[in-house]
C-alpha cells in the first residue's frame, strides 16, 4: 500500500510540474501586457510592480484595434449563424432521402475535406474579385461557410442517421411543411452536434489569419490576429503594446473554453472521427 501511495504522489507531482511548464508562455504574455516595455526587457518573468494599463489605453488610442475586434466578432458571428443553418439543412436532405444522387452529393462534399486552403487560394481571390466580395467582410464569410460544408455534413449526417423518423412523420401528419419539420422538430434535436460545430468553427474563424489578412482591404484595420501580426513588424520597440493585443485575442477564447469545456472535448472527438 505504501508503494502505491508514493507512485501516486510522483504522478501528481510530475503532472503538476508539466502543467506549470505548459502555462509559462501564457503567464509570460499576461504579465507582459501589464508591464512597460522597459520592465519586460529587464525582468521578463517577474510579476508586474503595479497595475499598469497604459498598454491597453495606447492600443485603443494609437491603433484601430476596436475596428479589428468588431471585424473579428462580425466574421465569427455571421459565419456561425449561417453555418449552423445551411449545413444541417443539407445534411437533413441527404440523410432523409437516401438514394444514388444524395450519396453522390455526400461523397462530393467529403472530397472537400482533403483539399488544403493554400491550394485554391489564388484562384479563389480572383473569383472573389469577380463577385465583388474581395475587400469586403462578406468575402471571408462565404469562404468560411463553404469550408465548413464537408466536415459539417459528415458530422450532422452521421448523427441524423441515428435519429428515428417517427417524430418527423407525426409532425407531417399534423400538417407541418417540410421546412417546418426540419426547423421545429429536427433542428432542436441536433443540439449536441450544433454545439460541436459552433465550437470547432468558431475557434477556427476567430483564430484565422491568412484569409482576413489577404481578403480584407489593406489600408484599414482587419481582424485581431492580423492586427497582432502587423504590430510585430510595426512596433518592434513596443512589445508591451503587442502583448496587450495578444492578451485581448486570447482572453475571449479562453473564457469561452472555461465555460464550454465539455463541448470543446466533444468537438475534438467529433473532429478526430474525420481522420
Amino acid at each position, binding site marked *: 500500500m505504501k508503494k502505491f501511495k508514493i507512485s501516486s504522489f510522483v*504522478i*501528481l507531482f510530475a503532472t*503538476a510540474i*508539466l*502543467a506549470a511548464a*505548459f*502555462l*509559462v*508562455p*501564457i503567464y*509570460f*504574455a499576461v504579465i507582459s501586457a501589464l508591464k512597460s516595455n522597459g520592465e*519586460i526587457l529587464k525582468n*521578463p*518573468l517577474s510579476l508586474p510592480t503595479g497595475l499598469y494599463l497604459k498598454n491597453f489605453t495606447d492600443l485603443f488610442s494609437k491603433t484601430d484595434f476596436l475596428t479589428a475586434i468588431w471585424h473579428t466578432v462580425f466574421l465569427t458571428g455571421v459565419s456561425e449563424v449561417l453555418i449552423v443553418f*445551411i449545413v444541417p439543412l*443539407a445534411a437533413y*436532405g*441527404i440523410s432523409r*432521402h437516401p438514394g444514388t444522387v444524395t450519396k453522390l*452529393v455526400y461523397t462530393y*462534399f467529403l472530397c*472537400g475535406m*482533403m*483539399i*488544403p486552403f*493554400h*491550394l*485554391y*487560394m*489564388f*484562384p479563389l481571390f*480572383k*473569383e472573389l474579385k469577380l463577385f465583388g466580395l474581395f475587400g469586403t467582410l462578406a468575402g471571408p464569410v*462565404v469562404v468560411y*461557410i*463553404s469550408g465548413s*460544408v464537408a466536415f459539417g455534413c459528415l458530422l450532422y449526417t452521421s448523427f441524423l442517421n441515428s435519429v428515428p423518423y417517427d417524430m418527423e412523420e407525426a409532425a407531417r401528419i399534423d400538417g407541418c411543411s*417540410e421546412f417546418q419539420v*426540419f426547423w421545429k422538430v429536427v433542428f432542436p434535436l441536433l443540439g449536441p452536434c450544433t454545439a460541436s460545430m459552433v465550437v470547432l468553427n468558431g*475557434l477556427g474563424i476567430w*483564430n484565422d*489569419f491568412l484569409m482576413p489578412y489577404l481578403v480584407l482591404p489593406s489600408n484599414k484595420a482587419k481582424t485581431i*490576429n*492580423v492586427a*497582432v*501580426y502587423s504590430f*510585430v513588424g510595426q512596433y518592434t520597440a513596443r*512589445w508591451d503594446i*503587442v502583448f496587450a493585443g*495578444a492578451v485581448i*485575442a*486570447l482572453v475571449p477564447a479562453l473564457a469561452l*473554453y472555461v465555460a464550454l469545456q465539455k463541448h*470543446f*472535448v466533444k468537438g*475534438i*472527438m467529433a473532429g*478526430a472521427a474525420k*481522420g
Partner: protein
Amino acid sequence: MRSNSRTTAAFIAPAFIFFTLFIIVPTASSVYYSFTSWDGINPYIRFVGLANFKEIFTSARFGNALKNTVLITIFISALENALALGLALLVDNVSRARNFFRAIFYVPVILSGIVSGFIWKIMFNYNFGPINQALQSLGLSALKRDWLGSPAFALASVGVVLIWKGAGYYMVIYLASLQGVPQEVVEASTIDGASSLQRFLRITLPLISGAFTINFTLSLINGLKVFDQVAVMTDGGPGFATETIVYLLYKVGFSEGRQGFGTAVGLVLLFIIMILNWIQQKFLKSREVQL
C-alpha cells in the same frame, strides 16, 4: 415522391452552391493555372505546359522547402504524439484534479497561431527573451543561442512551439481512448502476473491503436499545413531555413507574383495529403486491434 425530391434538392442547394463555388471551382481552376505562368493580376494568361512541375522537381528552393516540411512534419508528429500519450497516461492516472489538468494541457490549443507565435518569438529573443535570460541566471550562458536567428536552430525552435500548441489536442483523444480500455482486461492481466510495463505494451497500447492512427494522421496533415507560426516568428528565414512548402507557395504567389507556379506547388501538397490519407486507410487501420 416528386415534391419530396424537390424539397431535398432545395435543402441541399445552399450548401452545394457555396461548396461548389468557393471550394471546387477554385480548386479546379488551380489545376488549370498550374499549367500557366499566371502572375495573379495580368488578365493575359500564358500556357507553359509542365514547366511549373519541372521547376518544382528540379529547383533547389523547392527541395529545401520539401526537406524542411518533411523534417518538421515527421519530428513534430513523433514528438507530439509521444508527449501527448505521456500526458494522457499521467492525467489518466493522476489521483486528483484530473479534469483540471486535462484543461490546462489543452489551453495552448485554443490560442491562435499568430498569438502563440508572437509569444514564443519574444520568449526566444536573443537579448531579452526569458529563455536566454533564464539560462544566464542559471549560469548556463554557454547554452544561450539566437534561437530563431540561426539556421541551425530556427526550424527546431518553431517545432517546439508547434508541439507545445498541439500536444493537448492529441492528449484529449488518447485520454478518451484510454478511458475506453475495459478494466476487466487490465485486471485479468494483473492477476496473470503481468508487470505494469507488460500491461502497457501488451494490453493498453494495442487497444488504443485506433487513437494512435487518428492522431498520427492528423498531426502529419497539420504539420504539412503549418503557416501562421512561420509567418510571425521567422518569415521563412533566416535565409530559407524555415521555409516550408506552404510558406514557399505563399511567398511565390504573393511576394513574387508567380501564382501559376504557386498553384502547381499546391497540387503537389494535395498529392502528399492524399498519399498520407491512403497510407492511413491501408496500413495503420489494418493494424488496429478491436475487442
